[in-house]
């Protein structure tokens, strides 16, 4: 029972990180029809911003703030202005290929400009244990879970309980009608990219103490988050959250109780099953095409 609880907590922590990344995928898709295949590298890169700031003498808290700020500017604003806006008018496919090229560029850039080796990254809390309901669980897992859930909750409040958030949702649902209603559509789209920049930075700071900061981290994380978004529903933020959590928990439990040798296959099996049975995702909306 103790092992199960530990696995569950660890899986929830991993799943919460996947959820953060998957929400970014979904937000950017909903508002601008952009599938960002560099999302994994967007999570990898902020860790190096933080490390570079720490190398320059900044304490961790300041370096983290700098990392988040740089991520919002470079991976949010610059990404939209330099890549999405010029490519979107040519259709989805050229933009997708551009993001694939961007992911290679960011990966090789981190390797060449920082290091090919994994780098230790400071954790938010020390590696100690806490007793929860009679079971010993890792403080680090709980901290990651708490930060991720607070972030998701804050995003939920922003999107659903504020005028700004409702304007963003209106833009995502129908940009033409939103424009007619006086919503500054372009500003809402830009805000989505900036929010994604912040989300990936937070995910990076949470995951790098466990994964080590390494230029190849984006491959695993990007794939996991993409699968999570599809499983949960690519057109629903709550679907991305659900998909991320489910994926993290099932991955851990299957590796422990079924087979660790085939742990890489389980997310893909779940993905295939969901696509066959419910192609719009477990919590996604079926979309009809208007002719």
């Amino acid at each position, binding site marked *: 029972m103790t*092992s199960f609880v530990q696995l569950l907590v660890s899986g929830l922590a*991993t799943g919460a990180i996947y959820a953060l990344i998957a929400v970014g995928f979904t937000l950017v898709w909903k508002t601008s029809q952009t599938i960002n295949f560099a999302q994994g590298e967007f999570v990898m890169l902020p860790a190096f911003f933080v490390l570079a700031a720490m190398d320059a003498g900044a304490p961790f808290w300041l370096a983290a703030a700098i990392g988040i700020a740089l991520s919002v500017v470079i991976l949010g604003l610059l990404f939209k202005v330099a890549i999405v806006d010029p490519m979107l008018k040519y259709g989805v496919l050229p933009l997708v290929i551009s993001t694939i090229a961007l992911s290679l560029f960011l990966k090789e850039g981190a390797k060449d400009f920082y290091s090919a080796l994994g780098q230790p990254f400071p954790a938010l809390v020390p590696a100690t244990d806490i007793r929860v309901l009679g079971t010993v669980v890792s403080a680090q897992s709980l901290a990651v879970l708490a930060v991720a859930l607070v972030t998701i909750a804050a995003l939920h409040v922003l999107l659903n309980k504020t005028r700004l958030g409702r304007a963003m949702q209106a833009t995502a649902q129908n940009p033409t009608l939103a424009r007619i209603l006086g919503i500054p559509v372009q500003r809402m789209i830009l805000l989505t990219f900036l929010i994604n920049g912040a989300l990936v930075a937070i995910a990076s700071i949470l995951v790098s103490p466990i994964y080590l900061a390494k230029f190849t981290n984006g491959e695993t994380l990007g794939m996991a988050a993409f699968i999570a978004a599809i499983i949960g529903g690519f057109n629903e933020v709550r679907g991305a959250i659900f998909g991320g959590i489910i994926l993290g928990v099932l991955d851990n439990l299957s590796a422990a109780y079924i087979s660790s*040798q085939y742990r890489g296959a389980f997310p893909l099996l779940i993905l295939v099953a969901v696509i066959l049975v419910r192609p719009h995702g477990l919590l996604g909306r079926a979309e009809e095409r208007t002719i």
Partner: protein
Amino acid sequence: MVRSALFAAVVAAALGLASPLYAQSTVYIPAILELSGAGAVSGTNFRDGMLMAIDEVNAKGGILGRKIKTDLLDTQSDAGISRAQLQKVLDNSPYVVLGPVFSGSVLVDMLLTQQAEIPEIVGGEAAAITQKGDPYVFRTSFGQQFSMPKIANYIRDGIKAKTVAVLWVNNDFGKGGRDNFVKEMAARNIKVVADVSTESGQVDFAADVVKLKAANADAIFVYTNEEESARFLREAKKQGITAPLIGETTLLGQKVIELAQGAAEGVHGHVGLTVDAPIPAVKDFAERFKKRFNYLCDHNGIKGYTAVYIIKYVTEKIGKFDSKLFAETLHGLTITPKDEPGVLMEVSFDKNGDLDRESFLGEVVNGQQKIVAILPKLGK
């Protein structure tokens, strides 16, 4: 105009003559190494040790009057890319090839160097490397078939374990090590109660640690690569594993200790090569390496360094640059630090390309690897 054409012809002739002249003043020894990917720690350490030795040798006039010329090619820790890189350098007729370190890449590359009759001095430790009858491959560290019996004896006599769990990486290095380890455990009547395979580049070890805890073994043998070892140790500490964690060189390596951030404390095991060896030549090497590269190297740095000096010694012994004769001479040869100080410790090669050397038992204490015993050569 005639004068200009004549001048151009003289320059062209001079350049044409210079090229073979330059080639005769150098000896081409390229390196195929893991400079990125899962094996980057191993490959970069090997590279830096090798570069330091090359600079030292060249500063003293090179080998038989020829300076060493090298190329560094990145395998990206991928066997297919390693093979392609090797094919590139074989087109330039190398004297000897250095690397790779990853056993999977070595096993693929060996086929090409054997066909080309070019010696290859590798960092790989998988047992299979020297079991294929290839007369052109030579190790820079113990093969698993030599290191595992030493670890097994330590687990039986030192830890006095009756049951053991093994965690290994699912590649040629890990599989070979696991197979040899399980064989040695069976020979000593020590039961393997958990056999957990992990993936190269794996980041999440939560499920694996839960399995190991549930097995409740007297000791846990960990056999993965550097970064995975660090991640495993951090997870093991997070989940409060109390059984002794035993490793083979990598687990006690300096980079693992650094990446594990305190989680490597108390780890012990067999160490084939280490900068913490109580041997003056090794300590001196470690200091010079740190001064030059600003970090403390692991055993792969020593592998790269000694490989260059082995080439130097054998070439000077045979008196010419003959790749085939090089390989024949190195089989059955013993090189002492008196013969060639650059080898740091006495080393003997057998007919398969395996080496024999003193080794050590170590423990991680206060963030440093501490040597607790010296083990003699197996041949003595």
